[in-house]
């Protein structure tokens, strides 16, 4: 299943991330994961949130430059070799990972690894065939703190 990542263009200066989190806090949007990549004076803030469509709208209304992109949120076992199995599989099929980051879902049991790849449909089918669970935005938003057992 395909999930959505929100990317925000931001100058590399104090207050830019705070401006983003202020909007999301006000909208009561939960952030699941975040990464920031910077290039000297500017950068891109990537967020996995529980309601990407609403978050994107709120951030755009606040004047920010926002882009929604499709990513795969893959559930992997939180144990040695868990991530390796996923990356080896993508490598074997020559799928390139442009960006990736993860978060733990259930300590020592499950984690979610978010990957932005060049051939998303192919990667999705590949993962499904090999027994990986991928989460869509709805599934991601259903992850409640302290209710990890659902997964």
């Amino acid at each position, binding site marked *: 299943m395909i999930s959505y*990542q929100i*990317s925000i*263009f*931001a*100058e590399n200066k104090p207050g830019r991330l705070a401006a983003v989190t202020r909007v999301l806090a006000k909208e009561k949007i939960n952030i699941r994961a975040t990464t920031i*990549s*910077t*290039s*000297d*004076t*500017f*950068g*891109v803030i*990537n967020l996995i949130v529980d309601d990407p469509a609403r978050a994107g709208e709120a951030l755009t209304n606040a*004047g*920010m*430059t*926002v*882009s*929604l*992109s499709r990513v795969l949120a893959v559930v992997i076992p939180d144990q040695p070799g868990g991530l390796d199995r996923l990356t080896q599989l993508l490598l074997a099929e020559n799928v390139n990972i*442009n960006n990736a980051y993860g978060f733990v879902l259930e300590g020592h049991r499950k984690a979610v690894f978010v990957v932005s790849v060049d051939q998303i449909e192919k990667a999705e089918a590949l993962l499904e065939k090999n027994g990986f669970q991928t989460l869509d935005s709805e599934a991601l938003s259903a992850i409640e703190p302290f209710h990890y057992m659902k997964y």
Partner: protein
Amino acid sequence: MYWEKEIETIDSIDLSKLQMARLGKTLKRAGKSPHYAKCFAEMDLDADGIRTPADMERLPLTTKEDLRENWPYGFLACSRDELIRMHSSSGTTGRATVIFHTAGDIAAWTNLLARCMYMVGMRRSDVFQNMMTYGLFTGGLGFHYGAEKIGALVIPAGAGNSKRQIQLIRDFETTAIHIIPSYALHLSSVFAEIGVDPRRDTRLRMAFLGAEPHSEKMRRKIEDLFGFKAFNSYGLSEMNGPGMAFECPEQNGMHIWEDNYIVEIIDPVTLKPVPDGEEGELVTTTLLREGMPILRYRTKDLTRIIPGPCPCGRTHRRIERIKGRTDDMMILKGVNIFPIQIEKKLMEIPGVGTNFVIILDREGYNDSLTVKVEVQRAFFGGDLKQLETLRRRIVEELKSDILITPRVDLVEPDSLPKSEGKAKRVIDNRKN
């Protein structure tokens, strides 16, 4: 001490007579050019009626836009066969302004440069290293010819390559240099870096500083770093280039050669002349140009005439250091840049938003140009690589147009002052 004593010390009555005689010839020549022929016809101007300096006001003003609109031959007052050289201004919007010279024009210009350099003590025994860009820019060939005319040994070093410049200075015992002031400061730091003291280890004794306005403080600093005398040089390609006005050994204002140019200072708003001593825009008329006479050219440079005689004995009036511009032209490392050039280039690049700001800084001895550019909202695809590619493309495109490598910062849409109205596009943080 004079290159041409009679002309340099001419009294004001004789000078005025000479100017009016030369102006008469200039107007006749100018009337042969398509541009002025049209101008004179429209104004119903009788060239014979221009007899005194007070009549100057009846002549049309000429602007850079006129030159551009008449590109390339609209100002030409002779056949193209008579031309032997062209030069072009370093920074323009769109089309460059082109100036054509006959053999007579080059001879007159060369003579003026010889007069300038002789005035401050350059002789045939000197070794002159010209550190200006050779080519379309007038500062290279202009000084080169003038120094040869005096009989000095000329080293046509050209711009840049500091270590080689220093090597040449040492190997051939250079005594005089022509250099951009900001580059002089940079060169002094290279001297320090390689452990050579220009004061002790070279025979440098004078420098001609040109192509860039600079303060008295900066001149003193350069003199101090190198242990020589530095003289300010002024000129613009439309009026030949350097050799138009030059400091004498008094170092108090630049004598503008009134046997070659009629000098007026006007109020840039009312366009009326202001009296000597008052600041305004410098307007000049060529008196010896054959190929391309230019009448009452608006230089857009702000200055004033320094009233009173100069102790050096030369009667040609002196203009003060250029105080600024009446337009938004920027001068960086000797290169003229208009904000509109940057704007035009930016607007051609997909992904660039509506607003931008140009920031000029001086870091140590080096001037730098930063352009802050808004990214178009729709362009953003969530990818840092895409932004970095855009940034690099802007750097490359600007560099190809303005000849200086800018620093480019991408900023968020609507984060800069709006382009409507009188947005401040240029922030100049340089202090001399």
